């Protein structure tokens, strides 16, 4: 896939028409075989693209993403469309009256929205196993999961249909699919990017962010979405690693890469890590259950059964337990800020997901020596970082010919710039970099689990 910034440069220079880029993207998405697309938006896309071409023809700069087609997870409001959040429950909801703020910012930068993309129903899962639309397949090996819940967004970028897509990340829903599909994905500092016009899941943790196959695009899109105009050269960050459970459930390739990246840097162990993840699990269940309680009472049987039963169970959690988990969250956030300061690091490195993409036919993963459901447990390494509210950038390990694996670069609160600097350093060292699908012989990896 040609990078988003290169596509935009060609459109701005008049070498390529935005309408042609949109047509090509729509054609590719219509022919997609990864169960990644929930809705094409041809009328809107071609209108937006024609507007971009007209601006170029009149000597007006349409913006840094001029004419670049992109897609959004099916929980972003798109004016005139029903925001389904991947659920049949919302099929008859009123159409959105305006675009999500993130879509507006991208449109103002010249980007062209062409599709909405598959997800776990109401974003409750790490697998994009959707009872209504089907299971999204991993472009690197279609017999494997793409990860979730933003699996459709990851799959269309990994497949080369689009240069970028937006997803959401409540407990790892950008980082897990980015890792499994071999992409860059950013979960920003909690609440730093606008959630207005997105369907919520668990408000304490919900965030949005982009997927790309290269770092320069990711940073450019981050700057557009955040309004951060600081494009200054990136200073080398001070890097450490997270030990403890982060070092226990990971692929050997991830272990070797982390050791190479961190060198003599510090290894930090968070003593309450297991409690962090469990508290995140409880808060998510409580907030998700509370959000859906009224609809569950009305139309429970219209939900995806697996999601429904999780939401109902969450709706039964006692408020006191939720309050206690929130109290730990507040303390943990203060503690991690102090830890970054005390140890003098800017970036902590950890695995993004514990393994390569699981097989669709056997969606289980090995955690602490036991087989666990991928749908609930692929986020074992992302959920504690969510709990701490820190920004995390998933980077793909450079390993052509093998199934993708990613690392999380975890920063201080509002420390995204250091994450981009670290990722750039790793790219220059040849440690990370996206690989296009196609080099894999799936049968060679059918047995690879960790």
């Amino acid at each position, binding site marked *: 896939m040609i990078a988003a910034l290169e596509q935009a440069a060609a459109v701005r220079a008049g070498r390529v028409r935005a309408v042609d880029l949109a047509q090509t993207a729509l054609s590719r998405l219509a022919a997609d075989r990864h169960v990644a697309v929930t809705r094409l938006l041809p009328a809107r896309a071609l209108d937006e693209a024609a507007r971009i071409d007209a601006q170029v023809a009149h000597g007006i700069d349409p913006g840094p993403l001029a004419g670049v087609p992109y897609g959004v997870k099916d929980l972003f409001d798109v004016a005139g469309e029903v925001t389904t959040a991947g659920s049949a429950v919302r099929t008859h909801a009123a159409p959105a009256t305006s675009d999500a703020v993130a879509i507006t910012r991208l449109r103002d930068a010249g980007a062209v929205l062409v599709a909405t993309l598959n997800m776990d129903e109401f974003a409750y899962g790490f697998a994009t196993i959707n009872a209504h639309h089907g299971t999204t397949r991993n472009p690197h090996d279609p017999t494997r999961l793409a990860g979730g819940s933003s699996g459709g967004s990851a799959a269309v970028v990994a497949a080369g249909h689009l240069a970028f897509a937006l997803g959401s990340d409540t407990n790892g829903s950008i980082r897990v699919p980015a890792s499994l599909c071999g992409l860059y994905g950013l979960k920003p500092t909690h609440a730093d990017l606008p959630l207005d016009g997105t369907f919520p899941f668990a408000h304490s943790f919900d965030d949005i962010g982009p997927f790309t196959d290269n770092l320069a695009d990711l940073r450019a899109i981050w700057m557009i979405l955040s309004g951060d105009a600081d494009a200054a050269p990136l200073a080398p960050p001070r890097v450490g*690693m997270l030990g403890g459970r982060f070092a226990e459930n990971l692929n050997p390739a991830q272990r070797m890469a982390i050791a190479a990246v*961190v060198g*003599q840097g510090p290894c930090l162990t968070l003593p309450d890590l297991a*409690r962090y993840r469990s508290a995140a699990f*409880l808060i998510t269940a409580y907030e998700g259950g509370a959000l859906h309680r009224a609809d569950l*009472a009305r139309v429970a049987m219209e939900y995806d059964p697996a999601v429904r039963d999780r939401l109902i169970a969450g709706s039964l959690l006692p408020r*006191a337990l939720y309050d*206690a988990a929130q109290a730990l969250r507040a303390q943990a956030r203060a503690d991690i800020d102090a830890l970054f300061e005390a140890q003098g690091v800017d970036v902590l490195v950890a695995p993004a997901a514990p393994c390569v993409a699981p097989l669709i036919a056997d969606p289980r993963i090995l955690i602490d020596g036991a087989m666990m459901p991928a749908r609930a447990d692929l986020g074992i390494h992302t959920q504690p970082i969510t709990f701490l509210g820190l920004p995390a950038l998933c980077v793909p390990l450079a390993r052509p010919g093998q199934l993708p694996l990613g690392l999380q670069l975890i920063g201080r609160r509002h420390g995204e710039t250091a994450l981009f600097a670290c990722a750039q350093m790793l790219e220059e060292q040849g440690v990370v970099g996206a690989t296009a699908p196609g080099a894999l012989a799936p049968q060679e990896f059918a047995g690879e689990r960790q």
Partner: protein
Amino acid sequence: MAAIIATDMADPVPNHRAAAPHDAQALPRTEAEAQARAGQDGWQIPAPCLPGVMANLALLARHAAIFAGDDHA
């Protein structure tokens, strides 16, 4: 080899194991308790959902125990 700097014994990360579960934080353990809790919110859980709901409540109970400081849950 990277040096281990912060561990359970090292500040500045305190250990928060003081919190213990109490009755107000107890999860429903039976289908009857689950229905009673739903009834407090004015609805009834459809019968076909109960097996899945109880399985998820068991998972949440395990996380509640870990949260409370029982690492062997």
